[in-house]
């Protein structure tokens, strides 16, 4: 009886204004924090928010920051991130963050104000076609023209953002709808007619996968962000599957942390800046088991030369990813956690012995011996690799979350900051958004007030969203911005050196701000390290400071990032820091 009663209460309509519905729907969705920026077309919602309890609003300094903060919040908690923006520029400013979330499958819900319905299409002040602009960069979006459809639409938006392959959604709400009275319905009232993502794996496919794995002699797990998105349980199951099989594991940029970097089966990241052992193992394997990754071009290199001798299994929750880039021998459409659990169960029931892969491991040990992440140290200059190594050594025993911007520093962080747990690593993978890391750190710190949150940054990227330092100050968010300052857009400079004859066209950061003074202007602590000898002390000072810190770490300006698979090359054609030849073909120079 009580169940029926509860259900009635949840689906029973209540009358309130559209703006009140927004707040109520957020509460019913369990939202405790939203990132936003007010403006004319969302004033009624901000008015409702003024009186609302239980939802904290974080005022960003630019809507792109709100979107990245929501992403950081989502990636570090597994819960959806929410942003609230006004019409026109409020919505267009958030587009980069929405696209970023789409590329990396991050659940964020954007609520945007729109001009009143009678003004839509008249080029009204701060009007833009928000649903038109955001259609290709969201999983789905809606313009709500009927107040009675508003609460259902918001609940549907949350469901679509967080289930199946997660992604960003937008609900665009005209101002008159926010003022009108209508009926509110709760989350339980939503039943979508067409959206039914498949999460349960097909038993036959699992059986075939287990057979292929049992017979493999040179297997490798190639894991991705899908494991992280499937929840912490999926990461645990991955460990168990590796315990049973003894197979080596590599991961994409997005999947770092799903498998502990300290375990002997870990080969490091793969791809363009992956380790020698990971890429060679991918190239020479006889069975590739791709779990929740999507054969991105940064991972595969030249498709025609990608792991030519292997059978391939591809597990993905999104059917459109199977055979999109690489033709596979077995596709499994399912939630990563559920599919891995099914593999484990079948492996155990069949009492499958661990496959004989001793020779394979011996080969991998040889590749490891190449020590592809080694670099030439210096007593006078801080090498960026050294800076990351020290940062890792001094922070690894704390509850640390790392975000990054995009470029060389991001790859050094991915190579050298070793993760043991999922959800600790927030980086812009697919879109490669410079300016992601600082606002993402804001979002992470909001979700984890007591954790150590560090944005490993470059001096160029960080200037793209620098103003969010002010947001961090306002909400006492003690984020640490650790800038590897080489005075160059380092990745651009490196490509110009390798591919464009050393013509450094517009990649030198002239007229850089004094980051220490800048920190002080924001009310943060500014620190600078210029020699290896002073680095540890300064890092410890940064860690011990209970407010935002901007750390200007002056590094070797011309250090290059290796290993590198040059454009148009295969996994076994990597170039290393200690070899002079770039090995880039003319065709390769055409590639990004």
């Amino acid at each position, binding site marked *: 009886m009580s169940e029926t009663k509860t259900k009635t209460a949840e689906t029973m309509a209540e009358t309130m204004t559209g703006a009140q519905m927004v707040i109520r729907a957020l509460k019913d969705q369990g939202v405790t924090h939203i990132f936003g920026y007010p403006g004319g077309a969302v004033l009624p919602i901000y008015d409702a928010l003024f009186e609302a309890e239980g939802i904290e609003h974080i005022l960003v300094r630019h809507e792109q920051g709100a979107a990245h903060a929501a992403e950081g919040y989502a990636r570090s908690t597994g819960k959806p991130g929410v942003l609230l923006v006004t019409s026109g520029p409020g919505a267009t400013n958030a587009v980069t963050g929405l696209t970023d979330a789409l590329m990396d499958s991050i659940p964020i819900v954007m609520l945007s104000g729109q001009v009143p319905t009678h003004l839509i299409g008249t080029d009204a002040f701060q009007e833009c076609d928000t*649903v*038109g602009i955001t*259609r*290709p960069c969201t*999983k*789905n*979006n809606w*313009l709500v*023209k009927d107040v009675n459809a508003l609460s259902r639409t918001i609940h549907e938006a949350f469901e*679509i953002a967080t289930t199946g392959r997660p992604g960003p959604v937008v609900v665009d709400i005209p101002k008159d709808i926010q003022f009108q009275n209508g009926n509110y319905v709760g989350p339980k009232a939503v039943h*979508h*007619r*067409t*959206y039914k993502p498949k999460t349960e794996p097909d038993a036959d496919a699992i059986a075939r996968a287990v057979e292929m794995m049992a017979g493999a002699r040179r297997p490798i797990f190639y894991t991705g962000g899908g494991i992280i998105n499937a929840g912490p349980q999926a990461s645990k199951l991955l460990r168990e599957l590796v315990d049973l099989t003894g197979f080596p594991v590599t991961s994409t940029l997005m999947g770092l942390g799903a498998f502990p970097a300290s375990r002997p089966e870990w080969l490091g990241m793969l791809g363009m800046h992956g380790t020698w052992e990971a890429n060679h193992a991918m190239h020479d394997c006889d069975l590739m088991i791709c779990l929740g990754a999507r054969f991105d*071009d940064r991972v595969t*290199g*030249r*498709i*025609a030369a990608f792991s030519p001798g292997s059978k391939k299994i591809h597990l993905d929750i*999104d*059917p*459109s990813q*199977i*055979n*999109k880039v690489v*033709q596979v021998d077995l596709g499994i459409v399912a939630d990563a956690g559920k599919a891995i659990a099914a593999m484990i169960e079948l492996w155990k029931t069949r009492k499958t012995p661990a496959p004989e892969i001793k020779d394979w491991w011996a080969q991998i040990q040889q590749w490891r011996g190449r020590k592809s992440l080694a670099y030439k140290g210096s007593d006078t200059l801080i090498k960026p690799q050294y800076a990351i190594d020290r940062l890792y050594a001094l922070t690894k025993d704390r509850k640390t979350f790392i975000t990054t911007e995009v470029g060389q520093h991001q790859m050094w962080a991915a190579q050298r900051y070793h993760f043991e747990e999922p959800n600790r690593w927030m980086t812009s993978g697919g879109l490669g958004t410079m300016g992601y890391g600082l606002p993402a750190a804001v979002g992470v710190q909001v979700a984890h007030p007591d954790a150590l949150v560090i944005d490993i940054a470059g001096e160029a990227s960080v200037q793209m969203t620098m103003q969010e330092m002010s947001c961090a100050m306002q909400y006492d968010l003690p984020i640490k911005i650790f800038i590897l300052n080489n005075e160059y857009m380092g990745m651009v400079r490196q490509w110009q050196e390798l591919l464009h004859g050393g013509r450094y066209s517009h990649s030198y950061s002239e007229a850089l701000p004094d980051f220490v003074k800048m920190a002080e202007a924001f009310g943060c602590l500014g620190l600078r390290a210029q020699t290896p000898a002073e680095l540890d002390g300064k890092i410890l000072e940064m860690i011990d400071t209970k407010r935002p810190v901007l750390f200007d770490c002056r590094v070797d300006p011309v250090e290059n990032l290796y290993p590198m698979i040059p*454009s*148009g090359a295969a996994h076994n054609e990597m170039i290393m820091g200690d070899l002079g030849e770039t090995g880039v073909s003319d*065709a*390769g120079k*055409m*590639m990004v």
Partner: protein
Amino acid sequence: MLYEKDTGDGVRESHTITVLVDNEAGVLARVVGLFSGRGYNIESLTVAEVNPAEHTSRITVVTSGPPHVIEQIEAQLARLIPVHKVTNWTSTKGGIEREMALIKVAGVGDKRMEALRMADAFRARAVDTTHNSFVFEITGAPAKIDSFVELMRPLGLVDVSRTGVAAMSRGPDAM
């Protein structure tokens, strides 16, 4: 090359794909945007609401590409939230495809008589007639319309309007 697509040795196939969608605002833009955004080709497009009670519309697209691209097109369409069902009539082989066209031919004398004779042979109907022109209505498989248009060209063809393909399965079942 990094982004070199395997074009299946230049094999391009034409496929007719029907998408049953919720008839909500922007759904056509979503489908068409998918084609343009991912670089797929649209050769013809037909769309109308088919069930007002259920608010469903049927979109039929004729597209072309190598087999693995066609497979991607189907998968990408199925992924759109308002999509109920995607059917490829070309690979299922069980489809009927028909198109309607209006074809205007201007001329006098022998050419005019020849146009009328051809129209009769193709079972095209004159829906507008003047002393020096016809508008023919013709239905059939797209190839039949192609042939008719080619035959009319030397006989004074001035205008062609085609609806694009509508498709349906043979036998008693719905798509």
